[in-house]
């Protein structure tokens, strides 16, 4: 009962919280360098319809903002490796895709819905959380936030 209560009260990562270090999260695949970068971390799954719709939008964000320093990391929570591989092959995303095969990071972050994306600032703190993907609405908001974050001057160490 205590264990169940502990699980129920585990906190979601929210705006303002530091985002867990991706390199230390035991992810399968090559994790890009995210330190002191503006990072869009997206949790997705092959069985999730809105995740499928989000990939072309993230590909456009990658094309528009990666030259300015935006890093997009798409983290799959698929436990079925074949489904994960088939999805990646079909969508052919231009941004890095990794797999949280043991669902450790997603448990730590406690995403409220699938998909959920976290926009992380250069300071490593979550600046916004996007629950679900709502097409042009999410795209517009993300673009505004990304531009704002990229325009921020990096704080001196």
């Amino acid at each position, binding site marked *: *009962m205590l264990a*169940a*209560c502990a*699980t*129920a009260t585990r906190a979601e990562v929210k705006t303002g919280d530091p985002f867990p270090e991706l390199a230390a999260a035991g992810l399968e695949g090559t994790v890009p360098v995210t330190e002191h970068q503006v990072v869009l971390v997206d*949790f997705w*799954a092959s*069985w*999730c*319809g*809105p*995740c499928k719709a989000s990939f072309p939008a993230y590909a456009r964000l990658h094309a528009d903002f990666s030259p300015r320093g935006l890093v997009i990391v798409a983290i799959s*929570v*698929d*436990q*079925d490796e074949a489904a994960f591989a088939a999805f990646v092959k079909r969508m052919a995303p231009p941004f890095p895709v990794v797999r949280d095969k043991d*669902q450790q990071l*997603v*448990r730590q972050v*406690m*995403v*409220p*819905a*699938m*998909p*959920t994306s976290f926009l992380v600032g250069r300071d490593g703190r979550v600046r916004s959380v996007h*629950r*679900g*993907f*709502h097409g042009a609405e999410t795209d517009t908001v993300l673009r505004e936030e990304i531009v704002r974050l990229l325009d921020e001057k990096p704080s001196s160490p």
Partner: protein
Amino acid sequence: MKNSRRLLLLAVPGVAVLLLASGCTSASLARVHPWERTALADYTMNPGRDPLALAASEHVYFSRESASGGRGVNGSSCGCN
């Protein structure tokens, strides 16, 4: 004295029932997290995937229960968005 004993006899089972009920809602029912809905999101979990079968099932239901509709929910089970 007799009254207080009777009150105690009534209160103890009441408290036990309350404890059991709260246990049912918090401990014994596990929450399915959004990332754990692989099976729930499967096509076969959608009761509306076959309109003909659904219509037949609804027909049987309202023939027996004398009621039509009101037992479905919107959307699939994946909990997306």
